[in-house]
């Protein structure tokens, strides 16, 4: 089969997490040919963090914040502007309100934009979107809308700022995919736009996979970072998009039951939502034999606010007092967006006088070697899907102390310590308990490995996705073969049953 795997801000340019999963999928499902579509902020200047497997036919970068791509020609630009405005009106009305009628308006507007963008021009470029937004806002307020959470005041500046964000956000609609049998967006956000456009233009079905809940992460990310009205526009756009994405998907796959709740909450049909946990190769993570000489807590990941390293460092301040000689090792890269946060972590370590016992180890070549340097593995995140750190550590037979976020608790089960997020005292208590009790550490480590081998192996995950691809392709409408469009050696599109 020919699959378009669509990512946003991750694979192949950023390592870890979702990117690890993508690499596993592409490498493991080598009987399928993949087109990789990477939605990024800007084009160019980025190097792949992974060696792409040979079954990746092409990497297509879709920059969202580069220069706008207008329609070609004066007349075409005028037509583009008029039709874009006509589509923006229902889009804005639909995204602001709730309910099936609003969802229909949003879907209709987005579909119009997708058709208009089929030529490659960015669909809302040069459209007076701020004006459309202001009018839609006024209409929604007059109509009453949500009584308990009425729309905040939208000043014209807010409308302009929101229009800029919205115009950039819908640009992936203009991406034109080569013929594929199915799309596989890896988030219920901007990747959906590429998949929806392909579905509307050519009838290509898609499998939507969510590692974390995209919408939930936007709720957390936008907390105080935007003016209230701008935030309202963007969150409602993402909400409407996610709902539309769930409704149009052939199958929605989720890495955990935790995420599945959010998907069902926003209208996904239960029968079409499957939970496929992440997996790791047991051969790559054999059980670790020994432990470091000093009692060491190791954390592996990307230094990012969602990882809440402040809680971990504060917890370790207590651990150090309770367990003499204890050390904390933080292993992982600092992404460009996390530079400020990394500085704040260093400052916190200094302010607590922990510089001698907390090590920022930077990126590591092998996560297993990083786990080997710890007596236990910590995860202090405030939001997760199904973290590889935990699965890999479990497979290595290391005891874990993690926060009860996303799919962590269901992953760990009773084979590790799970504490509430953002609670340094609880986190410290979990670490102290395990550091002081080698027998309990060993018992939990063995239980964790047994659980990982039973549930979270890579072959299991790959087989599940292989089946899902078949299921998704089977939903494609029958299309008659077109000699000059379809290669004779690949009759899958023509022969795909309904």
């Amino acid at each position, binding site marked *: 089969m020919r699959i378009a795997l669509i990512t946003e801000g991750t694979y192949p340019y950023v390592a870890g997490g979702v990117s690890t999963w993508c690499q596993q999928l592409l490498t493991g499902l080598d009987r399928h040919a993949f087109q990789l579509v990477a939605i990024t902020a800007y084009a160019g200047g980025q190097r792949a963090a992974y060696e792409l497997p040979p079954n990746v036919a092409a990497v297509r970068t879709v920059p969202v914040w580069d220069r706008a791509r207008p329609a070609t020609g004066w007349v075409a630009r005028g037509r583009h502007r008029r039709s874009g405005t006509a589509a923006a009106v229902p889009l804005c009305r639909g995204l602001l309100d709730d309910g099936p009628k609003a969802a229909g308006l949003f879907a209709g507007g987005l579909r119009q934009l997708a058709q208009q963008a089929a030529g490659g021009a960015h669909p809302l470029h040069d459209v007076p979107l701020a004006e459309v937004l*202001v009018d839609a806002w006024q209409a929604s307020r007059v109509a009453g809308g949500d009584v308990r959470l009425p729309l905040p005041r939208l000043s014209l*500046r807010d409308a302009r700022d929101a229009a800029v964000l919205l115009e950039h956000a819908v640009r992936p609609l203009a991406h034109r995919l080569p013929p594929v049998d199915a799309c596989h967006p890896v988030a219920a956000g901007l990747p959906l736009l590429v998949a929806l456009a392909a579905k509307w233009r050519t009838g290509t079905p898609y499998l939507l996979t969510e590692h974390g809940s995209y919408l939930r992460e936007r709720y957390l990310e936008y907390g105080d970072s935007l003016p209230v009205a701008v935030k309202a526009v963007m969150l409602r756009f993402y909400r409407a998009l996610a709902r539309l994405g769930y409704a149009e998907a052939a199958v929605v796959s989720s890495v955990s039951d935790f995420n599945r709740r959010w998907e069902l909450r926003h209208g996904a049909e239960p029968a079409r939502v499957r939970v496929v946990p992440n997996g790791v190769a047991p051969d790559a993570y054999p059980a670790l034999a020994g432990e470091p000489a000093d009692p060491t807590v190791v954390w592996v990941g990307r230094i990012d606010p969602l990882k809440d390293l402040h809680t971990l460092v504060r917890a370790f301040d207590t651990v150090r007092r309770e367990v003499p000689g204890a050390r904390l090792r933080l292993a992982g890269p600092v992404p460009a967006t996390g530079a400020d946060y990394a500085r704040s972590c260093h400052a916190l370590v200094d302010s607590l006088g922990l510089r001698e016992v907390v090590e920022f180890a930077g990126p590591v070549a092998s996560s297993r070697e990083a786990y080997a340097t710890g007596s236990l593995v910590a995860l202090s995140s405030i939001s997760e899907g199904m973290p590889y750190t935990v699965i890999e550590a479990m497979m290595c037979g290391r005891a874990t102390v993690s926060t009860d*976020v996303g799919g962590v608790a269901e992953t760990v089960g009773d084979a590790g310590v799970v504490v509430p997020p953002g609670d340094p005292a609880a986190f410290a208590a979990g670490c102290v308990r395990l550091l002081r009790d080698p027998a309990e550490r060993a018992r939990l480590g063995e239980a964790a490995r047994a659980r990982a081998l039973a549930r979270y192996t890579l072959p299991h995950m790959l087989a599940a996705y292989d089946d899902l691809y078949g299921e998704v392709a089977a939903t494609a409408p029958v299309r008659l073969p077109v000699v000059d469009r379809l290669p004779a050696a690949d009759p899958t599109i023509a022969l795909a049953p309904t």
Partner: protein
Amino acid sequence: MTAPPIGRRAGGELDLLAARMAADCLRVVDVDELVAAIEATGVNDRVAQQQYGFPSVFALGEAVLSHLDGDRGHQLARLAAGGAATGRPDPYIRQALLRSALYLTPVLLAAAVAGPLGRVDWPAPAAALVVGWSGAQALAYLAHLVGAHRGPGAGTRVLAVGFLGLAGAWSAVLAMAPAALVGPDRGLAYVVSLAELAYFAAVAAALVTRAEAAVLAWTMPSWLVSVLAVGGWWPAGWRVPVEVALLATLALILGRAYRHVARRATGTGHRVRAADAARALAYLVIGLGQALAFVVVWRAEPGGSGPPPAALPLLAAVPMMELFVGWHTARVAAGLDAYDDRGAYRRHLRRGAAATIAALCVPLALGLALGASAYRLPLGLSAQPGVRGAVLAVAAGVLLAGVFTVVLLLATRRWLATAALVAVAPVGLTVGALAGRGGAPTDPAPGLAEGWLLPTLVLVLSTVYALGLVIAAAALLDPRSYR
């Protein structure tokens, strides 16, 4: 989802949770945003059931919101958080004064080294002024564009490379220029014109990196040296002459303005496209037109040993222009925050446009009045040698300042091509008129200046100004120019 009745088991807990989430609730726009925030504190479905008696965190979120909505104070606080103006007033007065001080600093420096400057024939520094002024406009636009994508280091590197290229080209031109255009001391001509270019480069970097205040602070040593020199307090016996001291202070200014030049670029590459090049060209033409018009007005009145009369209104106009355009821009920006209704905002813009155009009529009226009165001065002053010319020169200065303001306004409203046309019109029309009469455009004899060069200039500037005002009115009334 229906929440079970609360109060028996979980009422107190819910109170505590609501109190904990009250601050988050002020800015939530969706109940699920609150749910996400609650989950991030460690409350999951299990906790929602066991601790609060709700079937899920979603139901708990709904309950927390309802609980807080019962609190009138909380409702009011939320309304205030939602309705607060998002923008802050633009500190345009400070910016305008900072920029004006930067633009006017060379006048002080020139006064301090008036002696050596006198040994350089005027075409060399005048041409350097034109090259620096126009080059700075175009390069600053490109540097701003690159800097916005790749950081201040990349932006200042564009300026550095551009100005080094200009300096090299200018040096080559100077080497080949006949002595009549350079003066007896060719080496001094190099120093003067390269110092001019260096100062333009410093100001451009200050504007691009938004470091006007910092760069201005670093001009203080040059102010000090200049004041000592102009006041005659520079010790005669000092081993360091004023000129050398001023060059050293200029190096300090350059050093501060280009402190980011070696900083690594951030982000990804930015390709300058045809539209960018066209805009840079428009800025180049604007700078060229402004600088040439300035030189023509400066040289039109032969004057005596003091500063040319036209310089006085032009110097006074620099801060006024900056303040005026800053006021206009700030007023437009304030309307964006103040209005949530397009009709009201359009009325606000129309009122602003009317006020702007009305204010711009004042220099036009003043210039015309001065021009007319030059021929009807009391006490027979019009017939006195040089008086009529001086008044006409002042009128030309006033009118040119007005034309500059119109050009600046048009550029602010992104009517760049029109702005460029208005900027070059005074020189183009004046040269055309002079060519028609067979006279030389520069270095006029006193008779020529008073006879028809200055009147022609005043007439041309008045015409361009009046037409520019009509065009500016169209630009200010066009809603598209505010997008």
